[in-house]
């Protein structure tokens, strides 16, 4: 059990811009532009313009080196009091949720009264790097003290050195793309193509239904002409998804397609958290409480575990600390990096051997009620701008729990590159 927490961290609301596909409407928008827009929408909706918050924590997975102070720059470009401090965090796809953990912890400890957690990513406005050989030679030219030094160094550049590189969705230590890693895990757990396509179709249908009943009206600000997530296909069906060719994995057993994998996307999100006192002072209703969070990592490098399986380890640790079982939740938000990620994780929790050998549990965590899973859609439909996904989920889940009523519970699970995972529990207010 946790030591007695001095006070609770409340979630007051969130905002995001609709997510766009790579090279879509946000192709020319920078991380700073998008995060400022998401932040400003949240500031406007909650009426906190001119307020000095405890902190704003953001970040991006793909970031230009010139954006070292990305979040602080966004704060300065917003209507918040410029005396609001800010910093960037990067924990791959776990960034947004990790930021919410950081802000909520500071609130619980009494270090801050209020804060915004969020994140942003662009797969379009990506930094371009020159080849490593060329980079080293250019740095040498730059170090030259005299024109002659510089000219000599410049002469060392060969045509073959010239090349550009953009960030790739590839694990540096294995050289495998995330999809290729996931294909190994999906095969190991025997995740079928049909099950993946069903989950993907449900994601689109659930997200479309959520839009139709206005669920996102107070969670989103339109941006650059986009009012809904661009990737959403309201008419998606298992039949249509079934026609796509596999893109990850090889041969007969390949099951992962562009339809049951998340597309590269652009977008930003932000969530406002505070103490209950601060919320009352500002007349902002509390939607949910940020109960607890946990991160885990697995050794995917040596084949010991699948790249995206860390949440399978983080959740049982969090449940044990909170004295809860996997079935004690009204909603489950399991980030759909790939449909097979969600399905492998669920299967692992049902598996006696995995739960005993890997998690050290006497009996499996068991199954969840699938009707409580990603009920308003998730990343397969919405898209997944890496660092923005955490804020999307926290804001949506907080609203769902508020609608469900006080004491309702939600579980968040987000897998991340590098074999990491970040998970959290929210409670409705």
């Amino acid at each position, binding site marked *: 059990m946790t030591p007695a927490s001095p006070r609770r961290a409340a979630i007051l609301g969130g905002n995001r811009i609709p997510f766009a596909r790579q090279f879509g409407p946000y192709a020319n928008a920078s991380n700073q532009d998008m995060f400022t*827009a998401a932040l400003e929408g949240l500031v406007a909706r909650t009426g906190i313009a001119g307020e000095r918050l405890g902190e704003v924590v953001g970040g991006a997975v793909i970031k230009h080196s010139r954006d070292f102070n990305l979040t602080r720059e966004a704060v300065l470009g917003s209507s918040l009091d410029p005396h609001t401090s800010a910093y960037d965090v990067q924990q791959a796809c776990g960034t947004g949720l990790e930021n919410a953990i950081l802000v909520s912890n500071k609130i619980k400890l009494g270090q801050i009264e209020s804060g915004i957690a969020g994140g942003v990513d662009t797969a379009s406005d990506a930094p371009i790097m020159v080849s490593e050989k060329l980079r080293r030679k250019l740095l040498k030219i730059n170090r030259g003290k005299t024109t002659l030094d510089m000219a000599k160094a410049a002469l060392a550049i060969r045509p073959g050195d010239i090349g550009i590189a953009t960030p790739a969705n590839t694990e540096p230590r294995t050289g495998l793309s995330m999809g290729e890693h996931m294909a190994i895990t999906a095969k190991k757990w025997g995740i079928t193509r049909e099950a993946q396509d069903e989950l993907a179709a449900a994601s689109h249908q659930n997200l479309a239904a959520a839009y139709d009943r206005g669920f996102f009206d107070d969670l989103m600000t339109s941006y650059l002409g986009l009012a809904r997530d661009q990737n959403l296909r309201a008419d998606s069906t298992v039949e249509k998804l079934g026609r796509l060719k596999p893109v990850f994995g090889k041969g007969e057993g390949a099951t992962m397609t562009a339809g049951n994998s998340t597309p590269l996307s652009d977008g930003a999100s932000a969530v406002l958290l505070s103490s209950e006192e601060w919320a009352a002072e500002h007349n902002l209703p509390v939607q949910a409480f940020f109960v607890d969070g946990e991160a885990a990592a697995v050794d995917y490098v040596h084949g010991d575990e699948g790249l995206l399986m860390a949440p399978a380890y983080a959740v049982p640790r969090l449940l044990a600390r909170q004295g809860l079982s996997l079935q004690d939740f009204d909603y489950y938000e399991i980030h759909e990096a790939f449909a097979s990620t969600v399905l492998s994780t669920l299967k692992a929790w049902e598996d006696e051997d995995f739960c005993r050998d890997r998690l050290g549990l006497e009996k499996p965590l068991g199954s969840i009620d699938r009707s409580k899973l990603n009920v308003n859609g998730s990343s397969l439909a919405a898209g997944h701008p890496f660092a923005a996904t955490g804020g999307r989920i926290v804001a949506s889940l907080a609203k769902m729990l508020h609608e469900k009523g006080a004491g309702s519970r939600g579980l968040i699970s987000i897998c991340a590159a590098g074999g990491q995972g970040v998970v959290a529990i929210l409670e409705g207010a």
Partner: protein
Amino acid sequence: MPQQETFSTAPSLAKVFVRAAVAGKKSGSTLPTSELVLAGHKVDRQHLMDYQRLCGFGVDDVLPHTYPHILGFPLQAELMARKAFPLPLMGLVHVENTITVRRSLTSDDVLDIAVHAENLREHPKGRQVDLVTEAIVDGEPVWSGRSTYLARGRGNPDAERGAQAPSMPQGVAAAQWSLPGDLGRQYAAVSGDVNPIHRHALTARAMGFPKAIAHGMWTYARTLGALGRSVNGPSTSHVWFKKPVLLPGKVDFVVDRTQSPVVAGLRATRKPETEHLVLTLDAAR
């Protein structure tokens, strides 16, 4: 009622300038009564983004304080290039500008932009005229601008000078900006204002300037952009253009927020006594 002339697309500034350059001498003491209207203008998002980037505004769906001006400027130029307009377009100096934003405008707003000339008057250094631009959404006036131009010439030393510029904020620069040599060409590409004095040192020299000079409206917009996003909400600004900014060049941005309205300005970094512009801004924070 003035006679309205409606345009569905803005006149080409390049053509207007050519027409003005070959036009004969202008004279007279009355202004054309026409009101030129660009009707149903839908904001081009790419154009808006290019403008926001170049002028230091955030890239989002909110129209910058100065944005409707560049939509109306081709109409201003068209009106001033006409025979019935008593002053020569190419010799006019933009000396002052005021803008009032009545409500925050977004890229979804469909704008009617109406321009007319008024208040032709004597000035100690020549004659001045105001070009008034109104932006209207669904019949509601949402934005207005007043651009004051001076035609140098035989002036009347006893003439009214109008509201005097406040003094420039003193002290250290809040920021220093290095303005590239091609800034005039960049702004010309976005604004359509292809006046040769902004484009290149050679063309500027032909017009009597030692180097290309930055567009006044760029310096105005960039200064407002540095004052925070409140400028794009309900607000009023008033700028006085003083000495042109030569390109390439380095300028100091100075601001005094203790005054109400806020006073900000640009001065030359190397010669701080050279003041380029000073403006006041009255905005809800």
